[in-house]
């Protein structure tokens, strides 16, 4: 039925290069115990198509692509490849049939070269020399420049992603799956990626494109399939939809609009950083250089930048996971805190939300109540003469659950069992419930669905309205534009002067993210230094 419609649909090229879809799932179902991660999903992917897969976290997107890539076995239903029913034994069979995948989290060895990393990911038996030559040729052909001899740790995130894409392309796939590829790119880098994807499409390949960024999907994709709660909701042409209508299909209702309170008052400086420099503590870390800013109560300062430019190091220095020699470099609530431990900084009224939810923000295999204690033991009355007040820790879990709509299977599950969005709501909630004077947040909505992201952004705005100083590090420029009052950019361990958000255009931010200066005066200064 749908196939017919697709055939009649006037596509730019006017025809599909085959009578049956390249890949099709029929009633694909994946069951984990009682939980249906995928409930009878039908999806068709045609050659020369960029097909978006949209859905909130936990909607079943990853389960579906894992089944298509052979990482998991479906419980029921079938996968058809070029009209023929297949059962994949694993990713290597998927690759040999022409299915490639680029994961959101790279699997690269920092201390190996680009060519060595690519060689490790290939199943073929060609010699290293031939492979290197082919690598250079593929990367040139597609405009994905890579030096095969460089070691991965020297490369930017965008370049690392190129390795993953080139590695997938070297298998000459007919069908490529990309999981949130633009999450780590500057706007300019994303534009370059889209050119590559258009070219792959023109060559007759199909692409399954997982993303949360609806504008991007509208711009790039020919077809979009929306999943919700493990079921397919609709397959549509995203160009004929609005971002709002796509979001409604994903969420199954209206998304709460994030609203800043009018006339927010800024008060006294609550977080001041004075000429903070810090050598990296690991071989491939970034050196922080002369970072200074002042953040007042009632204000949200956004820090933009491509990952790996010192954001992690800055977070560690602000939180006290790494100590500065000079106490005056970090001042919290008027008190020099550069030399104080994270616990002491929490006692001064600071709260922190790191980027990694599992393993950094929470202990994955511990219960939520224990994870409430993880940061709450410092100053939230959860500990009485060394003894844990279990009721108080559970109370924090309940309050966070209620206030921030954390969805979970039971009252106090392990952190690892929550979906990314729900765990992030819990972590942000845990910190906000402590009424912090200063909140330092890293990537608050990284990999989080639209609904949860809206809840978290609203919570940050409300906290600022209530008088707290909020520092948000994010790679999502739309997010910073939505909530921040001022935006600064991090590049190679340096922080630019903050721009008022209304002056911070994507072009200006993109230039700063790429290391260019906005003012010639600054450029001259940098050259002289």
């Amino acid at each position: 039925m749908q196939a017919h419609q697709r055939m009649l649909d006037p596509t730019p090229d006017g025809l599909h290069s085959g009578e049956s879809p390249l890949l099709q799932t029929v009633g694909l179902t994946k069951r984990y115990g009682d939980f249906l991660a995928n409930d009878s999903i039908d999806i068709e992917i045609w050659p020369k198509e960029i097909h978006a897969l949209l859905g909130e976290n936990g909607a079943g997107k990853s389960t579906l692509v894992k089944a298509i890539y052979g990482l998991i076995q479906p419980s029921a239903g079938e996968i058809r490849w070029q009209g023929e029913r297949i059962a994949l034994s694993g990713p290597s069979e998927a690759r040999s049939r022409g299915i490639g995948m680029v994961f959101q989290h790279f699997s690269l060895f920092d201390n190996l070269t680009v060519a060595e990393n690519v060689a490790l990911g290939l199943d073929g038996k060609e010699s290293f020399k031939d492979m290197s030559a082919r690598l250079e040729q593929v990367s040139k052909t597609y405009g994905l420049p890579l030096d095969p001899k460089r070691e991965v740790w020297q490369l930017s995130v965008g370049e690392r992603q190129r390795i993953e894409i080139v590695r997938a392309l070297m298998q000459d796939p007919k069908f490529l799956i990309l999981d949130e590829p633009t999450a780590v790119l500057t706007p300019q880098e994303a534009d370059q990626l889209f050119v590559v994807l258009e070219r792959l499409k023109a060559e007759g390949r199909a692409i399954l494109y997982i993303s949360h960024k609806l504008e991007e999907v509208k711009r790039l994709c020919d077809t979009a399939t929306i999943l919700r709660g493990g079921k397919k909701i609709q397959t549509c042409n995203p160009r004929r939809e609005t971002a709002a209508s796509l979001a409604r299909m994903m969420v199954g209702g209206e998304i709460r609009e994030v609203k800043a309170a009018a006339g927010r008052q800024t008060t006294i400086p609550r977080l001041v950083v004075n000429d903070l420099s810090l050598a990296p503590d690991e071989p491939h870390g970034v050196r922080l250089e002369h970072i200074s800013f002042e953040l007042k109560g009632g204000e949200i300062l956004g820090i933009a930048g491509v990952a790996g430019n010192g954001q992690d190091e800055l977070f560690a220095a602000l939180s006290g996971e790494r100590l500065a020699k000079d106490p005056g470099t970090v001042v919290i609530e008027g008190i020099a805190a550069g030399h104080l431990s994270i616990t002491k900084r929490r006692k001064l009224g600071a709260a922190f939300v790191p980027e990694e939810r599992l393993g950094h923000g929470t202990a994955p295999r511990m219960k939520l109540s224990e994870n409430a204690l993880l940061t709450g033991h410092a100053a939230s009355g959860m500990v009485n003469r060394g003894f844990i007040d279990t009721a108080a820790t559970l109370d924090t879990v309940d309050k966070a659950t209620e206030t921030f709509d954390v969805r979970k299977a039971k009252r106090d599950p392990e952190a690892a069992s929550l979906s990314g969005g729900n765990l992030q709501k819990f972590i942000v909630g845990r910190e906000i419930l402590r009424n912090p004077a200063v909140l330092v947040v890293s990537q608050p909505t990284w990999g989080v669905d639209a609904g949860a992201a809206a809840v978290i952004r609203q919570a940050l705005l409300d906290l600022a309205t209530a008088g707290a100083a909020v520092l948000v590090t994010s790679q999502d420029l739309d997010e910073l534009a939505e909530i921040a009052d001022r935006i600064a950019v991090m590049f190679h361990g340096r922080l630019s002067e903050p721009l008022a958000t209304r002056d911070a255009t994507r072009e200006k931010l993109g230039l700063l993210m790429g290391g260019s200066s906005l003012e010639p005066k600054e450029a001259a200064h940098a050259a002289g230094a």
Partner: protein
Amino acid sequence: MQLVLEKRAERSNTIALVSPLIAIGLTIVTMTILFAIIGKNPLLALHAYFIAPLTDGYSLQEIAVKATPLVMIAIGLSLCYLANAWNIGAEGQFLIGAVAGSWIAVKTQGTDAGVWVLPAMLVLAAAAGALYALIPAICKVKFGASEILTSLMLVYVADLLLDYLVRGPWRDPNGFNFPTTAEFDPVATVPLLIEGGRLHLGSIIALLVVASAAILLGRTIKGFEIRVVGAAPRAARFGGFNANQLIILTFAVSGALAGLAGIIEVAGPVGHLQPGISPGYGFTAIIVAFLGRLNPIGILIAGLFLALTFIGGEQAQIAMKIPLDVTKVFQGILLFYVLACDSLILYRFKLVFPNRQVARGAG
């Protein structure tokens, strides 16, 4: 068809409890085969190992006596292991505790020293065990030396020190040149619980240690710190917990408990210092700690079980001429199976049929 390990969504608490039992079952099956291979009747051998010791009062007391050092050491080790600090040298800390405590007993021998002698011995033994354990801990924190190697190597140092003392300066002048000190005075001896029996005050101390550890781990922030540092080091640092301080602390505590167990053994069941005071308690306690799920109550049960294998091993040697070393084989196989079964807590077995079509309909 292919057997694969699949990660579970959440750790299975059922398996966490059942895994030691599966391991014991597999060990018994393996031992049965082993007994058959060395030409002993497996049923009789298993009876001698596991049933006979439970049938008379003397053996039951002896099990408690043997379990006492095992449990005390294993509790200390479990704190280390939970915190991801690998103290393998409890045997050495046990011996150093025995030596240090015995020093007071030897020096007060034949004097009219009062009741302070035994408490002083216990305190000194614990302090010595702790200090001895701090050597690998500090090497680890300061220089990054593997605590597994350093703590293990220090066992042999302690062993040779004990050997030197009982053959040299502390040898009993009336002991016919045997390498042993004189019998300790009554004030330097751990009192018996039952007159004429074997059970001594040390077992009560071991029970107190178990209870304290249960409270520490279950109720206190320090116990939480130990668990979180081991389970998620980066999250622990974010929580404000210092992993290096914890390595020092857990090594010190486990060294103190091993040292205490050492002097209790010497001043209790043995009565004097001599080589061979430990049949490998410090190593067997590693098995006890894991078999007991690094949980204090579990360790108490596992300690009693491993003590049973010691007593059963002796009985099997007397009754059936099965070499005593078979007990060590038994304990080694047991540890192997416990660690293997533990992977089922986070993983499960699954049959995969790669070349057949997946089952249709609701599964």
